């Protein structure tokens, strides 16, 4: 247990490194990780929804043990937010994946529409930074639905997720329906939509990535504000923000660049 063995767990840098040595060491390790430079994330929310989901997947990999190719000691980092949000299907995707990536929603503010217009939410994810040689094997769009006190227990909504094909300045965007299902007003938890085909399309054609739209309808076909149905948006808690996750398989061997 290396976390208890101070002799082993003590600093692995046993002497003060010169600036050049530190830079060289970091550059070497970054090259192993396949990174051109050290990332500088502008957001530091490890307890946001996407990092926590990814942590669930990481823990699932960590507890598989040596027979699956992962060495101990691995100290699983358990979340404090309740049961894991990764599903059994996610674990199945994980078994085939070399890399998993979650994407933050780039749409800063949810739009509010007049009652006469069609209510919808927009989401955009930047898939342009995916390393070369990685193919999408599965992708999900996840949005959290809270329990809604104000609605009737047996009330239902139809939730639909669309891929935006083309935007117009004078009318609604052209949409392609990806998934549609009925949800209960009393339902609570993560809603998961398969966007594998769409993600593959965006990776191959980054210029066609115009994002997703989500729309809600009542049983009478009336457009409903997603906020009314309990769907968490930008103004909601960080650990319930919508995000996208994609599973990748390497299609080519990664070669380190010549030094």
């Amino acid at each position, binding site marked *: 247990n290396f976390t208890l063995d101070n002799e*082993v767990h003590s600093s692995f*840098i046993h002497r003060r490194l010169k600036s050049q040595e530190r830079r060289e060491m970091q550059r070497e390790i970054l090259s192993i990780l396949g990174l051109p430079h050290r990332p*500088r994330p502008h957001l530091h929310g*490890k307890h946001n929804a996407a990092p926590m989901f990814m*942590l669930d997947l990481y823990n699932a990999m960590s507890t598989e043990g040596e027979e699956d190719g992962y060495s101990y000691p691995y100290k699983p980092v358990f979340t404090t937010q309740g049961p894991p949000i990764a599903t059994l299907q996610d674990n199945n995707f994980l078994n085939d994946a070399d890399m*998993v990536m979650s994407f933050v929603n780039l749409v800063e503010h949810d739009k509010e529409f007049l009652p006469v217009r069609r209510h919808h939410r927009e989401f955009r994810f930047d898939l342009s*930074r995916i390393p070369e040689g990685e193919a999408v094997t599965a992708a999900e769009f996840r949005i959290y639905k809270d329990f809604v006190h104000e609605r009737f227990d047996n009330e239902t909504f139809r939730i639909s997720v669309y891929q935006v094909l083309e935007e117009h300045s004078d009318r609604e965007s052209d949409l392609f329906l990806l998934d549609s299902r009925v949800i209960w007003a009393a339902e609570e938890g993560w809603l998961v939509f398969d966007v594998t085909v769409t993600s593959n399309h965006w990776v191959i054609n980054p210029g066609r990535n115009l994002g997703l739209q989500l729309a809600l309808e009542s049983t009478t076909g009336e457009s409903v504000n997603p906020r009314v149905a309990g769907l968490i948006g930008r103004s909601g808690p960080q650990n319930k923000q919508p995000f996208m996750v994609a599973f990748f398989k390497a299609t080519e061997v990664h070669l380190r660049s010549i030094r």
Partner: protein
Amino acid sequence: SAPAGTKQRNANRSKGANKSQEALRVANVAENSSADQKQACKKHELYVSFRDLGWQDWIIAPEGYAAYYCEGECAFPLNSYMNATNHAIVQTLVHLINPDTIPKPCCAPTQLHAISVLYFDDSSNVILKKYRNMVVRACGCH
């Protein structure tokens, strides 16, 4: 090398005596090598700390990992736990005879494990990636 022929029988007789002495010397060396188990090729502990590199702001997990390393002698006789290749065994014997010409085999990893790293990129997207051949599982003589 094979003996020259019958004309050199007398010479061979003295060469035979030298060979016996040589064989005795080899046997003594072998006995000393087999007794020196502490320095034999094996796995040693090495912990690589991302925290020590100051990377906690972008690497979510792990804080570090046990990489191990291989060190030790690959000397005659190569015991079974040394995971020696047949070539390494032969090279050990040749080194015994010609130590100045042929080096001992190298103690190096024979099996390696992958690790997974969870980290942020510049856009604060989160990446979980498997990196192969990062952890020594077994060492051997090659």
